[in-house]
Structure formats: structure tokens, C-alpha cells
């Protein structure tokens, strides 16, 4: 599957079916820091994703405020 990451924007290819929870763990991303988007819908950590999917991991952190 294609995984889109931001800040900076980049794409990684990940093979095989697995749950979102496991995908995030492999990519070393804390679930609390991203929205997981497939198509135009958000999906939860127990959703199984596969080779045909395009998954966007949209960061939710903003700031720099002192």
C-alpha cells in the first residue's frame, strides 16, 4: 500500500495486509499524533488495510507557540 506522510510530504510503500495499529507501530508513529485517512474517510486503529489502499497519515500537531 501507499502511505502518505507530511511535514515534509513523502510517500512510502508498505507491503501486506495488517491493522492500522500495526502499520503505525512499524512506522514508529504515535497514534495520538495522526489522523489515519483512507480515501475521504478516517479509519480507526483496528481497521485492516491492504496492498490496494492509499493511506494518508495526517499530522495533528501544530504549534511553535511559546
Amino acid at each position: 500500500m501507499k502511505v502518505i506522510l507530511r511535514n515534509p510530504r513523502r510517500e512510502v510503500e508498505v507491503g501486506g495486509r495488517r491493522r492500522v495499529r500495526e502499520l503505525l507501530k512499524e512506522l514508529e508513529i504515535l497514534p495520538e499524533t495522526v489522523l489515519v485517512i483512507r480515501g475521504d474517510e478516517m479509519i480507526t486503529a483496528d481497521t485492516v488495510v491492504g496492498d490496494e489502499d492509499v493511506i494518508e497519515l495526517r499530522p495533528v500537531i501544530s504549534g511553535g507557540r511559546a
Partner: protein
Amino acid sequence: MKCRKCGGTAVLELRRHNAAFCAPDFIEFFRRQVGEAVRRHRMFTREESVLVAVSGGKDSLGLWDVLLQEGYATTGLYLDLGIFDYSKESRAKCEAFAAQRGAPLLVVSVEQDLGAAIPEVQGATRRPTCSACGLSKRYLMNKAALEQGFPVVATGHNLDDEAATLFGSILHWQTEPLARQSPALPSTHPKLVRRVKPLYRLSERETAAYAFLRRIDYIVDECPFAKGATSLMHKEILNQLEDVSPGAKHNFLFGFLEKGRPAFERLADVTLNECARCGQVTTGTLCGFCKLSDQIKRAR
């Protein structure tokens, strides 16, 4: 995963609430949390005009969206920081949002009042850029609200912002900011408007989800100056805690507001004066904004 309320397919899990929601029920949950914040801290009434500070990001536009949906009388305030394409894009997002909803938007340029745009601040002062920017924003928000007759300014600070600020203040035991940190700061001087944070009960991930589900077109990219900012590091540490102990951020902030803050508040005894130059409120003779403006002039 199933929605806690209707049993339909969930789109978001909220581990700290031990719950998951479908899109409509999450939006309803989000609005209730904002409503609860407004009521609990008597932030504003339906008769008051609220100035909503918007940056083009998910939090502030999400907040403005909720308040418009709930029928509050709101005006947006966009502060143009002059940060290259980032400011151009974020301003365009705010203008498009306001135009789509027929809501009024004020635009104020930082450069006009400060004498320089934010990128120029670097080098002119020893303050970190984010700190100088924050100071300028607070100053200009208050000034705009006073000039335009708004009794209250609402900002999009969320639970993560507040927890990170608290964490930073505690690391240095800065008792003055600890006494002041609150979801609602009352007007303690005729020239100081009330400042409120209606999203303080909602995490950053929840505000992002709300903005996404409401199809709000917000700026996802980071401010170029935020890279490496201390507050981002504090957020990361707190998110690591949250991962192993859901609710950690919530308990940290809410515990402080309930039990910690009153102790610091008793210690704080600040005299407010009017700045000798601009007349805005300060604890000294010259306010922080005028000092910063002087530093910029000297650096030129």
C-alpha cells in the same frame, strides 16, 4: 470498532474516554465539549460579540465553525505575521472560510504596528521567534478587540497546547505564568479584554478530526519557524506518556486547573499599569510589544 452512541462504524477512537464515535456522533460530542467549556467558565453569552482569532489552522477555524453553527455573534481576526508563503496561504484559507459562511473577518498586519514582519524579529532580539510572535499576537488581539468594541477574544488553544504550556512552565517553575494559565482570563483592567479558550477540553487529534469531518479547508503545513520549537518537544513527550497511559494529558491539565492553579493564584500579586508609549496594559513602564519594536529599530 463501533460508535459508542449508535453502534455504526466508528471513524475515531478516543482512548482517554474509552469510546469511539461515528462522524455525526463525534461532531455532536465535539460541540458539547465546546458548549461545556463556554458554560463552565462563563466565557461569553449569546448577547456578546466574540472576536475569534483565526490562523488558518485546524483549531481556530474549527472553533469559529462551532461558534457559527451554535449561532454566536462572531467576527474573525486574522493577524498577518508576514511569514512568506505560509502567511499568504493561511490568510487565503481564512478569507475563503469567512466568505463561504458570510462571516465578517478583520485583517491586521503585524508589520504595521511592530515595524517589521515576524521573520525580521530573528536577530533583532534574543527572544525566540515563537515567543516574540506570541507576544505580538496577544498584544494585537487585545488592541483590535478594544478598538472595535469586542468584550472578549476567543483563541483556538486546545488541550495539547495547554498541557504543553503547563509542562514548560512547571519545568522552570515559572510561578507567574502558572498563576495566569486558565481557560478563561477575566478582564482585570479597562484596557484588557477577556480572553477565552473554548477548545481546552479537546485534544489536538480531536480538533483535527473535527476540521476534517466538517471539510474545513485548513493549512496542514507547519509554520517554518515552529521547527524545533520547545513547545513541540513538550507535546511529543506528553504524547509518549499518553500512548502508554491514555488520559495522562487530560489529568495533568485538569488536575492543575482544579488543584494546582488556586495555590499559585494566591501568590500572584501583580499591579497593572498603562504603557508609557502606547497606553496598553503592562506590569512595567513600557510594554513588551513596544520594547520589541524598539529592539527591531535598533537592529536596523
